[in-house]
């Protein structure tokens, strides 16, 4: 088990290093931030000042190594758009908003999708199953931003039950969280349903039924426990999707989290903030997947290396 965890951890570090190269390269490929941050008629003196100030006149590999060295010490540079603030500070300031929203979206996904998937499997071929399939189909085919706008129009503008957008308490979180969760509900429902169908057909389930174990116990205790490994492995992907999905949803709902920050930083070519957002996302994503791998290995000893 320990060897498995060490190997997985090293793989995560390697992935993170590759990500730093990709994000640094891609952000610089889009052009110089000078052209985004300075006015159209900036003077050569203004341009030179900013290029020098931000070290953009140095060779790319020097800039990258400086960036990497500083990043290892938690210094991602100064934000170019939010002047006077560190890039990491700007990102960390906005991260709680995204975690709040993402956490609620994950909660909604799990609370809705797992029971729905289980019930669809148990009542295969019924109206409930068909309804679950329709929900899954819609969830996976509706663009998130479109769904977000429709939710705003119906529940905020039309019915006036919830605020349209902005940052605030639980009422402000419901619509964006539902919009974020919708796709995940679809995916998780389908996974749970197929895993449950497989398990419900297993010999030990038939034996349990023959022994007279109550059906609810068979489904929710024995079958779900074994089927849960499939949605569990999906959890890492789900968390990652929630993070990346925040980019669109936070823009639509004017929710000032890291997703919104990423868009604004990209618009302003704020390299330090773009790099920090991506790396923070990567760390969270890799961390969650590492936990999932560990849990997977714990639940299923066959995949351990030892």
């Amino acid at each position: 088990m320990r060897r498995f965890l060490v190997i997985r951890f090293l793989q995560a570090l390697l992935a993170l290093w590759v990500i730093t190269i990709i994000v640094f390269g891609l952000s610089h490929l889009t052009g110089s931030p000078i052209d985004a941050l300075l006015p159209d008629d900036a003077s050569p003196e203004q341009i030179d000042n900013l290029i020098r100030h931000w070290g953009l006149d140095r060779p790319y590999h020097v800039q990258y190594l400086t960036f990497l060295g500083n990043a290892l010490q938690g210094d991602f540079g100064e934000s170019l758009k939010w002047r006077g603030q560190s890039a990491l500070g700007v990102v960390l300031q906005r991260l709680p908003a995204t975690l709040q929203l993402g956490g609620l979206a994950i909660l909604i996904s799990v609370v809705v999708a797992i029971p729905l998937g289980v019930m669809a499997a148990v009542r295969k071929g019924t109206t409930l199953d068909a309804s679950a399939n329709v929900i899954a189909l819609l969830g996976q085919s509706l663009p998130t931003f479109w769904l977000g706008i429709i939710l705003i129009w119906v529940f905020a503008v039309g019915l006036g039950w919830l605020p349209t957008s902005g940052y605030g308490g639980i009422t402000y979180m419901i619509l964006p969280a539902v919009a974020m969760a919708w796709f995940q509900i679809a995916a998780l429902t389908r996974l749970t349903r197929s895993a449950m169908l497989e398990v419900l057909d297993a010999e030990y389930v038939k034996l349990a039924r023959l022994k007279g174990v109550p059906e609810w116990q068979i489904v929710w205790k024995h079958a779900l426990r074994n089927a849960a490994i499939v949605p569990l492995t999906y959890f890492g992907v789900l968390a990652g999707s929630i993070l990346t999905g925040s980019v669109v949803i936070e823009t639509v709902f004017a929710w000032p989290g890291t997703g919104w920050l990423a868009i604004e930083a990209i618009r302003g070519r704020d390299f330090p903030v773009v790099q920090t957002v991506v790396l923070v996302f990567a760390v969270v994503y890799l961390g969650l997947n590492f936990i999932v791998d560990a849990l997977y290995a714990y639940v299923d000893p066959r995949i351990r290396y030892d």
Partner: protein
Amino acid sequence: MQALITARRGASVAIAAVTAVTIGWAASAGATDRVILAFNPPTQETNLFWNGIGEKMPSMQSLVGNDPLTGAYDNSELAAEWSANESFTEWTFRLHEDAEFHHGWGPVTSADVIHSYELHTGPDSTIVALEQLRAAEVEALDDHTVVFHFAEPRTDYAFQHAGRGAMVVYSKAQFDAEGIDGYINKPAGTAPYQYVERRIGEGILFEAAPDHWQGATPDFPELYIRFVAEPATKLALLLAGEAHIADLPREIQGEALAAGKTTIASQNPAMHTGAFFKGVYNRTGDPAHNPDLPWGDVRIREAMNRALDREQMIEILYDGRAEPVARWGMHPPHEGYVPELAERFDEMYGYDPERAKELLAEAGYPDAFPDPTVPIIVTALSGNPEFATMAELLQVFFEEIGMQTEMREMDWATLGALSRAREDYVIAPSRNAPIRPSEAGIVNFFTTRGTPFGGLEDDTIEGLANALQNEIDPAERERIAAEAWTYLFDIYADIPLAALHFELSVDPTVVADWTFPGVTTNSVSHYHLIEAAD
């Protein structure tokens, strides 16, 4: 063409359909103490004006004001009066003696102006027109008189302190007491609204300044600017009563109108739009000059202008709510306005595809050009969501007369980089916002000393721009500016399209009116004149 219109409006139609269903449910806003404006997020979120690019907060004032109706310079901001010496190398500003900073930071003095000037011209300044603001020396004659000295004539220096808003005045006393953090956290201004709080990514809150030195008492005790990037969300905010004013793109303003909202426009045009023939570096000896550029030939430029049905373009791009403009950059209140150009416009630029084809044939297009393809830039720019569609329309019209085109997607900043490198051999949508005085317009957009987002350059216009900059006699300046505008008109220097007013969608149950001139860098100003509905 119709297909293009249909495609562009697909999203709007979808929203309109939902609106139609929900309109009856829309909550109406009642009387409120806080007026909420849903605006695009600023380019840079900072309270340090010189670290932005000219987005002036409602709490700050410049030296020179603008009349809310005409946009003419007035003394509604910090300077009670100003004047230039005969050679326009000295500008003297006399401050209002009763002007006071917010939050108890005391009276506005010459020391505050000089301190602010130094901040705005420092090494970290990113303001627009830094070079136009910069003086050789700034001197305080007394507590309320400041003189800016220049090495050369500066005839339009008042513009830098008015609509252009190159500098706002901060309190030196606050800086001395709190340092730069004071400005970052709670900058004291002098406008009728004072700063309360900025929340990154959310918005900025202002409140009416108590006992304001100008006696201004805004109808709304609080003013909140909410940052919302997504147009559909802004519309939803307006319809749900969560915002009372929104800067909606024209294509969805109709939805707001259909839901009972109204539109308030700036009193004057806020910008000119059109397209530039870029990469025409025709000055003698310019290494960037490309003799094979198709639109380097004036006949091709005329053909491209005659290919356009501007009436239809304005209808599609701006729902017909724009005025055709004969000469991009030329504006009636400014020097050298030539009304005859508007009269000659149809004859010279009118929609005539047959004549356009003849002109192409006369120029030997396409065979006479090694690369006859015309690259058109598809770009997006805050405040100009129509630019991408404009590029599509240009392509459609150019191809109708037999031109070969290519669409190149490029963000505005990348286009700027290409232009700074003087490698921008493309046709690109362009704007002049605010509409600059003639000298600034000519120098900025048609000489090597201007913005990289400029257009055609040649010896004649360079000479006229130089002459204008060095001339101080008003009559002679009028003549030179008129000659420059006429010359640019005659050589088809660009593709002029429209003069646009800045439009805001408004909830009439909360906001009755808002008079603002539209001549400032932000386009909106005079926040204290937002009138509450009864």
